[in-house]
């Protein structure tokens, strides 16, 4: 939101992203490949590679779109673009997952079989990450409501850009930028769109047709669905956690800069700065999960399918 805050965040984010990349590529846990028996189903393996390719394409596109959004949409819009860039990134990754799922639908030939089963989104969601992302989304909603209510118009009459404090009848203090309605309304709309996109993507993952009912194939297919669902939740996590981090840090810094702030504002500022730092950790965790995709590449030798266990992080 603010150039100074952006400069402050860079030294914080760089080690976190490096940590995420290390965890994804070199940590011992990342070296667990997805075990699929190549003789089990060649089409499934090919589908997995295709889905992974689209996921990486979405990720790459997301980085470019987020950078372009952050730079171009910021001109004349008071850094609004930088705030929307995590959502743009998340939507691109989610789009990549959806395209990947749609392009791996098996072709139907001859006798068709289907396992008599009921698949739900809950079967494939990563529990711990899902709960963290859901809590962050609720936290972001609550924080945006609060900052919107506290915001005031700036010196040029733009609603919700500053935070005012009347210190005495003769003196008042204004701090900006403040994540009031000027920022919170577009951000709220963008995040809601992103969450709807994630819901559509998860539904696509669940409803993608299976290519048969063989128990080994079903187990292997479930592993791939879990990987896709994890990517969707991680992308949603980047979207929500990075946005919450930005809003919380900006609000926290603004609250600390007011000389006559009541004690409650000071406490709130400390809490928001802590939340902002915590959300940076969640963002890096989600990035690690997205980057870890390559390590799920199937091995060429494997006696059996990793029945239903997959690689959980």
């Amino acid at each position: 939101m603010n150039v100074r805050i952006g400069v402050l965040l860079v030294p914080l984010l760089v080690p976190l992203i490096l940590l995420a990349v290390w965890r994804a590529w070199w940590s011992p846990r990342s070296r667990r490949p997805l075990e699929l028996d190549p003789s089990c189903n060649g089409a499934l393996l090919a589908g997995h590679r295709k889905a992974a390719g689209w996921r990486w394409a979405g990720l790459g596109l997301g980085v470019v779109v987020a950078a372009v959004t952050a730079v171009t949409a910021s001109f004349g819009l008071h850094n609004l673009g930088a705030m929307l860039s995590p959502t743009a990134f998340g939507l691109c990754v989610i789009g990549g997952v959806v395209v990947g799922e749609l392009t791996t639908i098996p072709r139907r030939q001859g006798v068709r079989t289907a396992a008599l089963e009921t698949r739900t989104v809950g079967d494939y969601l990563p529990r711990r990450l899902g709960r963290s992302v859901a809590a962050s989304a609720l936290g972001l909603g609550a924080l945006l409501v609060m900052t919107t209510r506290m915001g005031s118009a700036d010196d040029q009459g733009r609603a919700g850009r500053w935070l005012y404090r009347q210190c005495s009848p003769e003196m008042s203090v204004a701090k900006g930028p403040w994540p009031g309605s000027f920022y919170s309304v577009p951000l709220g709309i963008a995040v809601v769109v992103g969450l709807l996109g994630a819901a559509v993507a998860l539904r696509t993952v669940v409803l993608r047709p299976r290519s048969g009912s063989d128990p080994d194939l079903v187990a292997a297919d479930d592993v791939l669905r879990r990987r896709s669902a994890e990517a969707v939740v991680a992308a949603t996590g980047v979207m929500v956690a990075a946005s919450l981090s930005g809003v919380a840090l900006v609000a926290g810094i603004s609250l600390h800069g007011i000389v006559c702030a009541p004690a409650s504002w000071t406490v709130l500022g400390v809490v928001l700065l802590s939340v902002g730092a915590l959300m940076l950790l969640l963002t890096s965790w989600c990035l690690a999960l997205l980057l870890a995709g390559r390590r799920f590449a199937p091995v060429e030798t494997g006696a059996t399918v990793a029945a239903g266990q997959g690689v959980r992080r």
Partner: protein
Amino acid sequence: MSSALIVDPDDPTPPYEQLRRQLVDLIEGGQLVEGERLPPLRQLAGDLGLAVGTVARTYRELETAGLVRSRRGGGTRVATAVPKPSAGEREVRLAGLAAAYVMKARALGATEAEMARAVLAQST
């Protein structure tokens, strides 16, 4: 639920009827018990490469027969516990299934030994 449903596009029986028969057998055979949920319409239609309307028709027919019940938001579930067929009934049904199999296998030109081998291969 570990059973599988099969649809043969070359079978002259309409797909909805193929599905209906299999589900009736599973419910009457006790493999689908009371309260067990059937796959959602869109999921089953996608897995079998059928139109959603085809699977919906199967479920409607089962509902009309009182074997399943559908509830908005709750999916389609097996309605009643159907008593398992007696030994005599089972024998009659098996004979019917065997007759249909033998007729099709003979039309293919299979010998008795080949037919027996195919049955054994499926049952092990």
